[in-house]
Structure formats: structure tokens, C-alpha cells
């Protein structure tokens, strides 16, 4: 029975893929393969991270992990990665849950030997999980690593590759794993699973982006942001788009027409958050504040609909809210979300 179901799921995935290519789907998509997944990180000390599912209008399904699997996620969701019909929910409380992308049923987990997991990539049937490692006595992370799990459904950590402090997002280029760390970028040799080199990066790296098909690394400092184009042969910074922008956060999403949206925060004493619209092709700020508020904790762009989704944590006092904007920052609607909404997956 399980095999039949898995075969059906595989079929669904395959046909789903074809559907994207413009063919008519033969098998209906899984329940969670359309709409928008809202990632709710959860509140520190409460482990109430969850995923919500928004399908338009007023239709929001809360806590889909718990409702499908009959147990709480019990962690803080740092990242959600989809790959080949599997969805990896990376918890910074030290675990990775693997669920079926279509129905969110549990397929496995990496439950032991992780510390502060941040993100994940899949390469040749192995999982590579970036992890800050344990804090030292002054809350630094000198023992950061990439955990290697030799099963795409999770299981034991087979190996830990020591990397620079605080690894975050990763990207696979050829047989190399690029790791965006808090201060620099590491290059890991995936044949040997060893750290090959460390590249100095201006600004604090955040994540990798494909801009016009080229690999870029988004980095920021207090008064400007950088889009470093990475040379995929020698992994050096080939060129940089530098845009002056005060108080940029790590929350950035690419829009269309070479535009991007960045959450900024003034900090003390006003604590004003805003959404800035920038042009990557022009290398300038189009509008430093298309929308203002407080508690902006994530951002995403819904292609096709051309909507900007802004996650508002409502001060973590209760659940958060998603504010849907048009490309000019006009509020279209709000969607109730879970605790600390932090990101989106648009289907």
C-alpha cells in the first residue's frame, strides 16, 4: 500500500513538473503543492514554529505539520527547502523534519547530533545541513559545521565538516558547496567533504541569488547592500552591485524587471521598519519606503500575481500577520499567520 502511495506521489510529482512545462496535469496536485506556504519561525523559548497554507481569498490552513502528523513541530523553523517531492523543515532548535511535499506527511527526520541548524541542500542523495554548532560561554559560534546525512529522508549525521563561524544559506556549484557565513564564504569540496577555501566577502553575507542566470551573493552592512557576482570557476567575487541603503536587513526578495524588495529597520529610538524597492539593473534605490510599519520579519514576491508578501511578527506577542502589497506598496490585503512569520514558498 505504501509503495502504491509512493508511486502515486512520484507520479504526482512527475506530472506536476510537466504541468509547469505547460502540459495539462493528469494527476491532481498534492494538497500543499499549490498556493502559498507561510513559514512561521515560532517564538524563542516556545518552539511553536509551524507552516500555514494560504490558497487565496480567506483560505488559510493553520499548523499543517501538526494537523497532518498529529504531533507538534516542536521547534523553531529556520528554513524550508523543497527538493524532489520532499520538503525539509530546518529547525534552529537542532533538527530537520522531512515531509512529503504534497501532503506534508512525515518521511523522516534528522533528530540527533545537530545544534543550531540553519539551512540545507541536497546533493547526490546526501543532505548537507549548515549548523552554527554549540555556543561558547560568550555566545560565539567557534564550532560551526556542515552536517552530512547520507540519506535523503534523514537519519544519523554521518560526518561534520568544520567551517567558518555561523554558516547560513548554501549553494551547490559543480562539485563544490558554497556556504554563506556571517563574515565570509566557505567553499567545501563535496568529493572529499572537506573545507577547501574561505573567501573574504565585503559586508555580511546573507544568501545566494540567481540574477539574470548568474550566481550572486547578497551581503549587507549598516548603510549599503551588495550583490556580489560569484565566479563559478574560482569562487572569487567577480563584480559587485553596490547600493546605498540604510538599515537593510537580511530579508530581501527578488521581484521582476531587475527589481528587488528589502526590509529595512531604523532601530532605536524609532524602530520604524519599511520595505525598500531597489533596482539591481540600475544599481539604485527606487523608493526607500514603499510601505512602513513595525515587526517586519520576512518578505517574498509572488510572481504572476506580482504581489509582495510582508510578514509582520506583531511583536511576537501572539500570532503574526502577512501583509500583501502590490508592487507600489499599496496594501491589498492581510492574511492571519502563525507565530513569527518569516518566509514564503510560492507554488
Amino acid at each position, binding site marked *: 500500500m505504501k509503495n502504491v502511495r509512493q508511486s502515486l506521489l512520484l507520479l504526482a510529482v512527475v506530472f506536476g513538473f510537466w504541468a509547469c512545462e505547460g502540459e495539462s496535469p493528469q494527476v491532481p496536485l498534492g494538497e500543499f503543492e499549490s498556493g502559498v506556504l507561510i513559514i512561521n519561525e515560532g517564538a524563542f523559548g*516556545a518552539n511553536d514554529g509551524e507552516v500555514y497554507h494560504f490558497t487565496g481569498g480567506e483560505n488559510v490552513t493553520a499548523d499543517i505539520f501538526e494537523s497532518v502528523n498529529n504531533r507538534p513541530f516542536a521547534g523553531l523553523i529556520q528554513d524550508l527547502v523543497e527538493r524532489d517531492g520532499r520538503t525539509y523543515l530546518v529547525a534552529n532548535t537542532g533538527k530537520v523534519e522531512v515531509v512529503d511535499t504534497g501532503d506534508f506527511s*512525515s518521511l523522516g527526520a534528522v533528530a540527533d547530533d545537530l545544534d543550531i541548524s540553519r539551512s540545507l541542500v541536497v546533493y547526490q542523495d546526501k543532505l548537507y545541513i549548515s549548523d552554527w554548532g554549540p555556543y561558547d560561554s560568550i555566545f560565539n559560534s567557534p564550532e560551526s559545521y556542515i552536517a552530512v546525512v547520507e540519506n535523503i529522508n534523514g537519519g544519523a549525521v554521518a560526518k561534520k565538516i568544520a567551517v567558518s563561524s555561523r554558516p547560513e544559506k548554501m549553494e551547490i556549484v559543480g562539485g563544490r558547496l558554497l556556504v554563506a557565513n556571517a563574515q565570509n564564504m566557505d567553499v567545501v569540496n563535496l568529493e572529499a567533504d572537506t573545507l577547501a577555501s574561505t573567501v573574504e566577502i565585503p559586508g555580511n553575507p546573507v544568501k545566494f541569488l540567481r540574477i539574470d542566470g548568474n550566481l550572486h551573493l547578497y551581503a549587507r552592512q549598516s548603510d549599503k547592500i551588495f550583490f556580489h557576482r560569484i565566479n563559478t570557476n574560482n569562487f572569487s567575487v567577480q563584480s559587485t552591485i553596490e547600493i546605498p541603503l540604510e538599515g537593510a536587513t537580511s530579508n530581501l526578495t527578488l521581484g521582476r524587471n531587475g527589481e528587488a524588495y528589502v526590509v529595512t529597520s531604523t532601530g532605536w529610538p524609532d524602530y520604524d521598519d519599511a520595505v525598500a524597492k531597489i533596482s539591481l539593473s540600475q544599481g539604485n534605490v527606487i523608493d526607500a519606503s514603499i510601505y512602513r510599519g513595525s515587526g517586519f520579519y520576512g518578505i517574498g514576491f509572488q510572481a504572476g500575481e506580482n504581489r509582495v508578501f510582508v510578514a509582520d*511578527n506583531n511583536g511576537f506577542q501572539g500570532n503574526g500577520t502577512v501583509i500583501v502589497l502590490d508592487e507600489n506598496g499599496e496594501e491589498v490585503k492581510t492574511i492571519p499567520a502563525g507565530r513569527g512569520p518569516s518566509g514564503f514558498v510560492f507554488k
Partner: protein
Amino acid sequence: MRILLFFTLVFFGQVRMAFGLADALSRADSLPAYGDTLDLLGVEVFSFPVEKYAQGQSVIRIKERDLERFQGQAFTEYLQKQTGLFLRQHGPGMLASLTMRGTSAGHNAVFWNGLPINSPSLGQADFSILPVGGFDQAEILLGSGGALFGTDAIGGSVHLHTRLKFNQGFQAKVQSNVGSFGLWNQSMQAGYSSEKFSSRTQVYRNFSRNDFPFRNLSKIGTPIERHDHGRVLQYGLVQDLAWMISPKSQISSSLWYNDTDREIIPLIGSNTEDQQQDRNLRWVVDYFYFGEKNMLNLKAGLVDDELIFNVGSVNQTRQYFLSGDLEWNILPEIQAKSGVRQTFVQGNLSSYEAEESRTEFYHSSNFLLKENLRFSLNLRQFVYDGNFAPFTPSLGGEWMVFRGKGQELGLKGMLARSFKVPTLNDRFWVPGGNPELLPEESYSAEMGLVHQLEKGAFQLEQSLTHFQMWVENWIIWLPRGSFWAPENIRDVHNSGLEYTFNAKYKLGRTVFGLNGNYALNRAINHTDVNANDRSAGKQLPYTPVHKAQGQLEVERGLISTFVNHQWVGQRFIATDNIGSLPSYRLWDVGFRYQFPEKFFLAGQAGFQVHNVLDTEYQILRLRTMPGRNYQLNITIRL
């Protein structure tokens, strides 16, 4: 002699029947002269009764015998199991904060022998590091006590006391408590007292491996696992001294050192291995002068707290207290007490250093208007570093409406304002602390009925109180950019009911006792932190609207047995009331055997089973609590 003793104790308010009405009547004629105390021998060392000027307020009295079977355990356990109060408990032996009348953890003031012991940096007390053993008895005053007790007493106040006696000779006591999950508590106490001098020393060591099984909800298949990071080791010393210097003056001193070393049980789904050490030193010295028509009290104290989190984060605070007050009879019907308290606070926290000077002026009066009607009026002005906290008055009264044969019915009420000055962390924490914060303040009104009945072998005392309270400028920490910062943002309206009863029936040699508490606490938040917040109009998180508790006790000769029950209603997880935890009920049973006189040992032994039905429950979401567990305790007196 006995009459004299009774007379004096009544005068000092130490003998009060259940709800504080009886002494109103017993003082009907006139207030006796102070000098009467001095003929007393073989009585307790004098300390000022906390509820003397708290007419109209509800009081929970906890006596030595009530605490006996909780020896060495956190005070949390007693309060959770035996009262209508709810504590937000992070696990057995872990952080536990008290919520009174729907207010937050910092909205109750905690005193030990008259010294305020809430942490000045955190603004609250962790009831898990107040082990039963550091005090002999306690009173809990429900409702606003700002005028009477100063900062923090918005929802109520908790008063812990050691009790020392004169003229008892040599006395010693050894207590041991063993139980499930490695529980092993031991305490030794020895004291000597003569007519004029009394000393008692107690040392204790409390340990629990805390490796209880729990369902790991974060893992596939939710396997049952055991905690391997919850060990608690605690030890301490209590030294009490008293000296009757002259027939008119007494000096007493108490010192309590408590050291707790805890492995913090992680939240389900977390793999943290946090450690916390708390070292608390409290020392107080009191001087009393008993004049013909007045009484002088000078008090000095020190509270030194050190909290070390994960070795690296060291947080130290020290408070020095000096106070003086004078109580006198203005008229035969009016008794008053006026005083001033000076506090100097030093903080050396992991992220900042701060110093603060606090001055408080207070005045209390008791008016005996009629034989059956009395009032308390309290006034206090608190000044901290030149900032005036809200001036706090309170007015409470008790009126014996009806007194018939074996039956009394009284009415009580109180109007009060209270306040809480922002904690050191609120004002100075780096980053985020806001020195501009205003004190939190509250207005409250309450009214209640008190009923006592005695019919043959049956006795009943019951009381019902309704309260309304408005708390403004409530401080909450909000994420602001890359850090969190506190703001005076929340307004809350609290209202509720408290019902308590205590019944006794004697049938031959058997005494049946039944007591119970029910608390209804509505704590409605009136503030949204931003336009998208959905918190206004909702119940505050982890504040159960309902809690009920009841205990049946049967005593016959040397044996007594009990069944205790508590039911805690649904608790919301966050301010928007979307997620909640289900209600739970727990049953405990136990028995106690008093060694007979001819037995070679004096003392008693007891055995208890907690959570008899092995109920799986969470007080706070994903915080584990133990299933069925056992305890055996033995007390030997020398």
C-alpha cells in the same frame, strides 16, 4: 497567664480567625497598652503581623504543619497543589513564577521576614528557589498591597516568616524526604532558647535527579524518553536569633543563605544544556521597643542575589534596607503606624551596571468605628532616584453584618492603588533598556462575604470575593530591529472571583476535614501592539480563567490521610488566544503517622503519591511535567 497570652496575641493580630473578622470583635472594647506584651514568657519572638493594617483583604495562611510534607521542595509545589493560585512552572524544580489575580510574574511582592526579596533586576521571584525549609510559615495577601507593602504588590503579596520562640530549652529536628527520580531532601535543625534568648540553626540539602520519563512530541512516533538534563542540587543555611534585651525591647535577626544549582530541562524539541546557579543571601535584623502607648521598630537588611547562567553570564544584585516606624494609639479607636524605608540597590549585571536609591514614606491607620466595623487606611509615597512613583492610598474595611448563635456573616471590601517601578533590566539592559519607562500602576476594588458556622461537631468557614482591577502602563518587551526593548504599552482589565472554604466535622475520634479553593481570573488585554495585532479583548496568555483545588483529610488518633485534587482550566499560549493548552486535573494521596508517645523516637512519617492517575499534562506548552511519583518523608524530633 493563659488569658494574658491570648490578650496579647489578639492585640498583635496574631490570632485571627479565618478571614480576619474575629479579631475585629475581640478588640471591641479598646486597644490595650503595649506594655502587656512584656510579661509574656515562653511565647513567640515578636514580629509585626503583616495583615494588621490589611482590613478587607483576603489572606491565605500557611502554617508549619501545612508545609510539613513539602519539606525541601520548592514553595511552588505547595502553592500549586494546595491553593487557588497558579504558577507558570517550567518543569519540576525549574523557574516558577506566580500570577495573582491575572497579573504577571512581577506583579506580586515577596517578602522574607519583612524584607522584600523580589530580584531588583528581574522584578520577580522564582518560587522554585524558595525551598520549604527557609521559612516556617507564610501569609499570602490577595489583591493590591502597594500602599502597605510598596512596589510590585499589584496582584498581591507573599510573606514568608521564620518563627522563633523563647523559653523552649534545647530542641532539634531532623527531616528527610526521599522520592522518585532521585529526590533526596535532608534538613537538620537545632535550637536553644531561654527566657531572654533564642537561637536556631538549620541546614538543608535538597537533591533531585529529575530524570522523569516524558513523551518526546518532537520526534517521529513520539517515543517515551527520560530527561538527562534536569538535576537540581540545593543547599542552604538558616540562622535565627532573638534577644529580649529588656522587658521593653527585643532584638532579633535572621539569615538565610540558599544555593541552587540547576540543569535547565530543555523545552521539548530543544537540545539546550543550560545551567543556572542561584545564590541568595538574605539577612535582617529587627529592633522593637515596646512603650506604654507606642511601639518602635527599626529594621536593617541585606538581600544579595547572584544568578549565573551557563557559567559566562553573571548577574549580581545587592539591596541594603534601613527602615524605621512607630506605631501608636492616636485615640482609643485609632491606631496608626508611620515610617520610612530607605533602600540602596546595586546591580552588576552581565550587560550593565546600575545603582539606585529608593525612599518610601508610609502611613497606616486602623479605625475601630463600631464594635462590628473597622477600617484600614494606608498611604505610601515611593521615590526612586528622584522619580516619584504614583502615590498609593488604600482603604479597606470589614463589617460584621450578622452574628448569631454559632454563626457569623461579614462583609469586607477594599479600594486600592498599586504600582511597580520598572526593573533594573527594564531601564538599563544593554541593548534595549529604556530609562524613560514609567511605573506600572493599578486601581482595584474588591468586595467579599465571609461566613463562619459552628454547629455541634461541624465547623465551616467560607469566603467569596469579587475583584475588579485595571492595570495601566504595563511593561512588555517588544522586538525592535535587532533587539528587544520594553515599553509601557499594555492596559489590562482584570476581574474575578475567589471562593474558599474550610469545613471540619468530628465524629468520635475521627476528624474529617474538607477544604477547597476556586479562582476565576479574567485578565483581558486592551492593547494591540500594532494595527495587525489581534490581542485586544483577549485573555492574557498562561492565565487560566479557572482553577479549582480541594482536599479531603481524615484524621484518627495518630494516623491521618488525605486526597488532594487540583483542576486547572485552559491556558492560552499567546495574547491572540489562537492556541491553547487543555485543562488538566491531578490527584495526590498520602498518609501520615505520628509516632506514639512511648515509641523510642518522637516525630512522624508520611508517604505520598503524586499525580496518582499518571496524567500527562503540560502547564506551559512543551514543558514536561512528571507522571506518577512517590515520596516518603520522616521527621524526628530530639
